[in-house]
C-alpha cells in the first residue's frame, strides 16, 4: 500500500494508539506513607548512618533494579538484608585480587572502580543508566575511607545472623565449607572446639578447621575434612558446656536466641546427590 495514501489512516491509527495508551495508562503512586524507597515508613525509623544513607539513596533505589534476588549479577545482592555482608572484605568475582570493599582504601575497592568507570572488566555501574551523581560517589568513598562501618550497632549478645547453607536448604553435592555469620565479632581462639557437624546417623563429620577469615571478625568458615556426600546433616555451635563460644568481649553465645547468653545453636541442612559444579 503506498505510504502517501495512508496519511489519514495513519493519523487515525496514531490517535487510536494514543487513546489506547491513555486508557491503559496506570498512573504513578503518590508515595503517601512511604519512604524514598517505596517502603512503608516504620514507626521507629532505623538508626541513621553513612552506610544506611548509601543503602537508602544508591543501593536500594538504583542498584537493586538488577542486583537483587537469585538473578543478581555476579551473585551480588545489594538489598538491605545482604549488601554489607556481600561487599565488605569480600573478593570480587571479576577481579579476584580486589575486594569489593576494602575498608580504609577506597581506591583499592572494586565497587569504587565500577561506579567510577575505571574498572578493568565490564561496564560502568549502574549499567545502562546515567553515572551516579558525584556526591553519591564521594559518599561511598568517604564511607570506605572511614572504615566501611555497618549501619546498625551490634546487639549486646552474641547470636547467629545467618548460615550458608541456610537451615532446611539443600546444598549442592560436594559441599565442603560452611559459613556462619554472627551479630558480633567472635573470639577466634574458641572456634576450634565449639563447632560440630554430624551426619544423619548422628556420627561426627571431621572438621579440618574453623577459622575467622581476615577482615571479617564476625564470620566463621568451617572447612570440612572431606566433601559431604548426599544426606542430612546438623550443625551445632556450643553456647554452654565445658567450652562455649563467646565474642571478643567475653559474651557467651546465645545459641537458642532467647535473649539470654547460653544455649547451643542447632540447625539442619541437606546435601543433594547431584553432580557438584
Amino acid at each position, binding site marked *: 500500500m503506498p505510504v502517501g495514501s495512508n496519511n489519514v489512516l495513519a493519523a487515525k*491509527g*496514531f490517535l*487510536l494508539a494514543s487513546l489506547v*495508551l491513555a486508557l491503559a495508562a*496506570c498512573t*504513578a503512586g503518590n508515595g503517601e506513607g512511604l519512604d524514598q524507597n517505596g517502603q512503608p515508613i516504620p514507626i521507629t525509623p532505623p538508626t541513621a548512618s553513612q552506610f544506611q544513607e548509601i543503602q537508602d539513596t544508591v543501593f536500594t533505589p538504583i542498584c537493586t533494579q538488577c542486583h537483587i534476588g*537469585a538473578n543478581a549479577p555476579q551473585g551480588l545482592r545489594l538489598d538491605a538484608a545482604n549488601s554489607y555482608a556481600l561487599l565488605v572484605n569480600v573478593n570480587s568475582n571479576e577481579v579476584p585480587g580486589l575486594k569489593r570493599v576494602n575498608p580504609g582504601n577506597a581506591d583499592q575497592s572494586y565497587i569504587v572502580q565500577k561506579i567510577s568507570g575505571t574498572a578493568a572488566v*565490564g561496564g560502568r555501574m549502574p549499567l545502562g543508566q546515567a553515572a551516579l551523581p558525584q556526591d553519591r560517589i564521594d559518599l561511598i568513598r568517604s564511607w570506605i575511607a572511614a572504615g566501611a562501618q555497618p549501619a546498625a550497632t551490634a546487639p549486646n549478645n552474641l547470636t547467629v545472623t545467618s548460615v550458608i*547453607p541456610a537451615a532446611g536448604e539443600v546444598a549442592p553435592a560436594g559441599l565442603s565449607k560452611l559459613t556462619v555469620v554472627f551479630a558480633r565479632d567472635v573470639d577466634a581462639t574458641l572456634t576450634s572446639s565449639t563447632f560440630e557437624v554430624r551426619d544423619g546417623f548422628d556420627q561426627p563429620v571431621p572438621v579440618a578447621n574453623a577459622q575467622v577469615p581476615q577482615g571479617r571478625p564476625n564470620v566463621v568458615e568451617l572447612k570440612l575434612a572431606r566433601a559431604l556426600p548426599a544426606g542430612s546433616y546438623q550443625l551445632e555451635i556450643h553456647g554452654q558446656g565445658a567450652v562455649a563460644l563467646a565474642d571478643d568481649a567475653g559474651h557467651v553465645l546465645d545459641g537458642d536466641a532467647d535473649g539470654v547468653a547460653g544455649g547451643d545453636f542447632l540447625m539442619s541442612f541437606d546435601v543433594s546427590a547431584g553432580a557438584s559444579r
Partner: protein
Amino acid sequence: MSVRKLVPWMVATVLLVMAGTANAEPYLAAQMGLKCAMCHVNPTGGGMRTVFGNTFAQTQLAEKRIGGDDDLWTGQVMKFLSVGGNARANYNWEDVPHQEGTNDFDVEEARAYLDFGVIPNRLSIYLDQRFAPGNATNMEANVRYWIKENTFYVKAGRMYLPFGYRFEDDNAFVRQLSGINMQAPDEGVEVGLESGSWTAQLAISNGAGGGNEVDPGKQVTTRVEFVQSKWRAGASVLYNDTDLGSRTGFGGFGALTLGPVVLLGEVDWFDDESIGDGKLMATLAEADWKLKQGHNLKLTYEWFEPNDDIDEDEQTRASLLYEWSPIQFIQLRAGVRVYDGIPQNDNQNRKQAFLQLHGFF
C-alpha cells in the same frame, strides 16, 4: 546457487513482501507480518541478521540506498562464515530533581557477531561479543542445530533466554522485571519450533543471571507466539528454582497492525519469593507510526508495580522517539523519556533525552 545469483531474487521477494522498515525491534516484525527468525539467525530475534534480513535492511530499511545492485551486503563473507555488528553512540541529557542536570557522550554498545555455518542451514556456531562499553565481554556463544530444517532446532551454550518481546530498550520495565534482556545472557539449552503460524521456545538454564551457578536449582523459560499478517499474540512463563526461594513469572504479549501504525503490548507478572511476599507487575504499551519510508515515530507508556502489598508505590515511564534511517545501515534516533514515581524518590522522577547514531550490518 551462489549468493550473487540469489540477490535479485531476494530483492524482489523483499520488495513484494515488505512495506516497512526493519531492524531488531518487534514492531517491525509485526509491521511486516513475519516471525523474528525471518531476519535474525536467532529465532527469538536480535543479534546477527540473516541474508534475508540484511537484504531487506538495504532495500527497504533506509529512506534511500547508496550504491549499485552488485554492492548488496549479505553478511556472508565466506561460504561458511557470516558476520554482523551493532554500534550505538549517544549524546545523553538527564535532569534529576534537586540535582544539577548532566549531559555526556557515550558508547551505549559496540558488538560483533560471527556465525559459522559449518553445515549450511543445519549446524551453526554463533558468537556475540560486546567490545564496548568496558572491556570485551562475551554475550552469546552457542551451538545451534536444526534437527529439521527451518522447523525444529536445539541450541546450547550462552544465550539470551526466550521471554516476551525482545525490545531494543533493555531498561524497559518489562525487561527489567523479567531480568531477561540483551545485557543478561544465561547458560543452558534451548529447543525451538517454527511451524506455520507458530513459533515456540523452551530453555533450561542456570538461572544465575549470567553469573556463576550458585545452587542446584535451574531456571525454565518458555515462550509461545501465534503470528498472523496483521496481528499476533503470545505467552511466556518463567520458573527459577533457587535456594532463596522460587521465582515465577507469567507474561502475555501481542501486536496489532493498523495500516502504517503498529500497536504492541506486554504484561508481565512475577512472584519472587527471594525478595519477599509482594507480587510484581510491569506493563508496556507501544505505538509505532511509519510516517514514510525510513521514518518512524514511537510512543511508549510503561507502568511498574514493585510490590502489590504496598499502595501508592507504582512507577511509570513515558517515551517519545523519532527514528530516521537516511541510508542503509545507519539510523539516527532522538527521544525523550519521562519517569514518574513517588515524589520522595528523585531518581523515579527524572527526565532524559538522547540523540543516538546507530550503525549496524
